């Protein structure tokens, strides 16, 4: 039986799922609640500070890269399967190209933006 390449997409999907489940909610709480409601100094996430942290460290850039790019693949995989399951099975190859292609495009874009900071 043909060997499946699914492990590549599934592992990216799973890693993205971990981030979507653990890291993104934390970030939402920090940026959406903690700071706007004054539980932390308002300028804790000021442009200058964040810019200095990101531009100064390759490690921070790599972490941000993972946190931003992996959820793209989580979305791509989920969305592709959802479309297939609602009846677009016939064009599943096209959907795969579109969904994973978008995720790859997003990943490249993220890399470029982070690189330039």
């Amino acid at each position, binding site marked *: *039986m043909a*060997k*499946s390449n699914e492990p590549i997409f*599934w592992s990216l999907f*799973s890693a993205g799922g971990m981030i979507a489940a653990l890291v993104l909610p934390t970030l939402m709480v920090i940026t959406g609640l903690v700071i706007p409601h004054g539980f932390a100094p308002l300028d804790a996430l000021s442009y200058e500070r964040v810019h200095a942290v990101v531009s100064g460290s390759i490690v921070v850039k790599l972490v941000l890269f993972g946190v931003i790019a992996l959820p793209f693949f989580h979305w791509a995989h989920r969305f592709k399967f959802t479309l297939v*399951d609602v009846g677009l*099975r016939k064009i599943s190859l096209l959907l795969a190209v579109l969904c994973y292609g978008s995720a790859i495009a997003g990943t490249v874009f993220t890399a470029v933006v982070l690189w330039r900071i």
Partner: protein
Amino acid sequence: MAQTIELEIFRYRPEQESEPTLQSYEVPYNEEWVVLDAINYIKDEIDGTLSYRWSCRMGVCGSCGMMVNGVPRLTCAAFLKEYYPRKILVEPLDGFPVERDLVTDMDMFVAKLTSVSPWIIRNEGEEKPLEEGTYLQSPGELAEYKHYSMCINCMLCYAACPVFALDTNFLGPAAIAIGQRYNMDSRDQGRDQRQEVIASHDGIWHCTLVGECSTVCPKDVDPAGAIQRAKLSSTTDYFKDLLMPWGRRT
């Protein structure tokens, strides 16, 4: 008059009708009865032409699975009192071709089950001679696979699986769980052989972790968990093969 309950039953007799119909039966309501008792009552007292499968009447043989009010159930474990006074709709298991009335054609399932080689496989020449006795196993090793071994092949998980409903090529919950049952068995050496089927495209990868299989399973086999574990270990294999092709397991 004693209380009664209405059963609406899916009928299909290919020699006399081209489309299935529903037929209603009024049976005595008895608190201790399960749906299978009511169906047996119909067969014995009202309409001997009704066809269905059953055997043990105690949740062991796995042959009495049907859709009861749209949910896959062992009819010998679904009590009338769960439904009374509403009427009960009984249909053949979803996802399988109907042969007659409530009897489905199981060939597809049996083929899937056989494809994962559900028996202990030993490498050539590593079979222990009889006189050396049995393969010993610790309680910990047994615990690794024991709950998968509880599967009674009732196919409820297939009837519940929306992925299987859309694509019957999918190997499906029980076959994968049973494959895992042998893969996790310390006496078995057949994992690589089973991976050919389990890790293939139609093996585990159609599953989107809906989890209905584990919800309906009467034996707590947790096929959804088995599939997740198989995905993880197959992914590990994949990257190992990719990064260290020389370490390829034969």
